[in-house]
């Protein structure tokens, strides 16, 4: 690697499409979610800071960094702090794999599995935050979070494999490039694809812990669930991680299920790809916010029952149909 290539790589990692870009995009996602939810509810949403309140998430983040942090006497503070540093890092690592420009910073055959693994670890970390806080509310929230994880993780994994089966690849970039050519080559796959897209958005809603699955941090029941004891800088990091999680969910589903990108040969094509990926991400987040706004919160037992009796069998069914239609059992081996 020449020094110039190294410089470009470092710039890409730190600025675009790396840390700075992902940080700003995460804050933009928060603004988008808040504004959209507000408009759905016939409210205004953020208005004061910046044009149309665009800078409000940044203002919140900076303000939280300066606020007093309450050290808990009985909680394992070091573990909570460590968890909260790892948490956004996990999502940033997963976001590096998303092909923002048609190609991604890091890409290898099997990075889809890596992303799924990282989101799985994040659920475990959320449980850890709740458990280390040693508060009745946070413990109940942590237990709820882990029960919900058991429900949504399996169908999420299975459903994300559907586009992988369709395109014969486990690399997110390749899936994104080859999705529409593969679908058009075999139009029988289109209903399978549509069904899996509808279901994956619902399952993703459970991963994001938004309505109707906002059970682990149900405000009116257990105050804030696992992050009830988190304040100040810790809360800033938690919020950042949460925005990144929403961004990851939107972009991952957008890229793998809507595709439409290609390997760019010129900067103009890269820019076009960038716009397409961003639009897909915002479209998926639009759907997620819409579901959030038209439902009430369910109970944990109802969620577990619904997932284990309907969603998991249905997702296995969809995957098997996809495999059968594609022909052959594991064609990528």
């Amino acid at each position, binding site marked *: 690697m020449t020094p110039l290539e190294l410089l470009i790589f470092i710039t890409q990692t730190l600025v675009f499409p790396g840390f700075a870009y992902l940080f700003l995009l995460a804050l933009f996602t928060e603004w988008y979610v808040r504004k959209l*939810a507000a408009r*759905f*509810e*016939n*409210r205004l949403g953020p208005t004061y800071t910046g044009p149309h309140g665009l800078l409000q998430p940044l203002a919140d983040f900076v303000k939280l960094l300066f606020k007093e942090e309450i050290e808990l006497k009985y909680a394992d503070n070091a573990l909570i702090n460590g968890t909260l540093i790892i948490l956004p890092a996990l999502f940033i690592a997963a976001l590096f794999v998303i092909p923002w420009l048609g190609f991604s910073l890091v890409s290898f055959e099997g990075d889809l599995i890596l992303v799924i693994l990282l989101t799985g670890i994040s659920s475990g970390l959320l449980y850890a935050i709740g458990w280390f806080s040693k508060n*009745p*509310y946070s*413990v*109940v929230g942590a*237990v709820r979070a882990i029960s919900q994880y058991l429900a949504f993780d399996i169908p999420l994994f299975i459903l994300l494999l559907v586009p992988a089966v369709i395109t014969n690849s486990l690399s997110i970039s390749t899936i994104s490039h080859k999705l529409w050519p593969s679908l058009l080559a075999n139009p029988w796959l289109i209903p399978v694809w549509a069904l899996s897209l509808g279901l994956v958005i619902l399952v993703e809603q459970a991963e994001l812990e938004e*309505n*109707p699955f*906002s*059970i682990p941090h*149900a*405000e*009116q*029941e*257990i*105050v804030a669930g696992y992050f009830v004891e988190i304040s100040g800088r810790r809360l800033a990091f938690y919020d950042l991680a949460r925005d990144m999680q929403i961004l990851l969910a939107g972009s991952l589903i957008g890229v793998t299920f809507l595709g439409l990108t290609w390997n760019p040969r010129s900067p103009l094509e890269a820019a076009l790809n960038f716009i397409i990926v961003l639009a897909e991400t915002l479209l998926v987040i639009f759907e997620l916010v819409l579901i959030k*706004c*038209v*439902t*009430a*919160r*369910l*109970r*944990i*037992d*109802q969620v577990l029952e619904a997932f284990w009796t309907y969603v998991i069998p249905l997702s296995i069914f969809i995957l098997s149909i996809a495999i059968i239609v594609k022909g052959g059992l594991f064609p990528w081996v």
Partner: protein
Amino acid sequence: MSIIELIFGPQHPALHEPEMFRFHVDGEKVIEAIPRIGYVHRGIEKLFEQKTHVQNIYLSERICGICNVAHTLTYVNVIERAGDIDVPPRAKYLRVIVAELNRLHSHMLLLGAVAELMGFTTLFMLIWRDREKIMDLVELITGNRVISAYNTIGGVRRDIDSDKADKIRKVLLKVEEEWKEYKKTWMEDPTITRRTMGVGILKPRDALKYCVVGPVLRGSGVKSDVRKDDPYEVYGDIPFNVVTYDTCDSWARYMVRVDEILESINIILYALDNLPQGEIRRPLVRRLPEAEAFAKTEAPRGELVYHLYSKGGFKPYRLKVRTPTFANILGATIMFKGERIADIPVILGSIDPCFACEDRHTIVDLRSGKSFMLSSREITRKFSRGSKP
């Protein structure tokens, strides 16, 4: 998990007023619920004895801000019965209109708040958006959005003209149209019905045994409404239905309120159409003879009771208030048993708790003999009276 004592309140997002509930939970299951009331005790009953009858109108409406019209209505009723004061018919109709507007806004407040308790923020925002229109109507008639100060001894304080009546009609018809859509949402939305149906069962037998009142009782299928059973003002002349649902769960209690909103709109429209002409108030009576009187009305939350004992003069000797939430809180404790933590806000919301009106009582724990609410000195002060009539 072993049994955890989960404490709800006095500060908790599910409670809009300070009150504490201890829940013994096993995992997610509630084994026992122990309410501990008294955080907003303000000594209002004692204060009643030190103010004149006229001043007490405005004190009574501060027992509960949400159902303030019901409180003043009961208060002026009890004074009018004690002093044998006659009220002009137009004033009676106007009282009914404002009381029903108050019921509308109270029920809308609760149904919106409960939607929020279930995490349904959109429905909460939309219901409260429509509630604004009702509050604007109250402002138009009485001069203030919430605290109306409308009823007075011997009548009402303001009249409405035909312009105002037309405006009320127009807004109410619009709200009725919207509300029919919300009713469909409450009846059919899969997440709402899944959260409320079969949750917090209160059988009619238990409801009568624990003396619950108002929409909680009607949600258990018992047809009981003071407006029908013991008509005050002109409720005897106005046709309306007593709404009951017999599924006995939280959903039934919410649906009673949803339907009562439609009934209330019809009552107001009928009262506006049949508004008699004439004066709206009699000259103010400041002094009562020696008398004892009792009045009850149907407040939005249930039966509201005032009992006045006057020894003559400008001030009451004793005024006892029994608010509906105090009657309902005991029934609520048995609704919680066997339900889950997630159901606590839904069940608590279904009795429409208003702790500020409830807190005028001393609760003595019989097991330990300890008084929860007041120190012994305060209790002595509270119950030793006679020097100041």
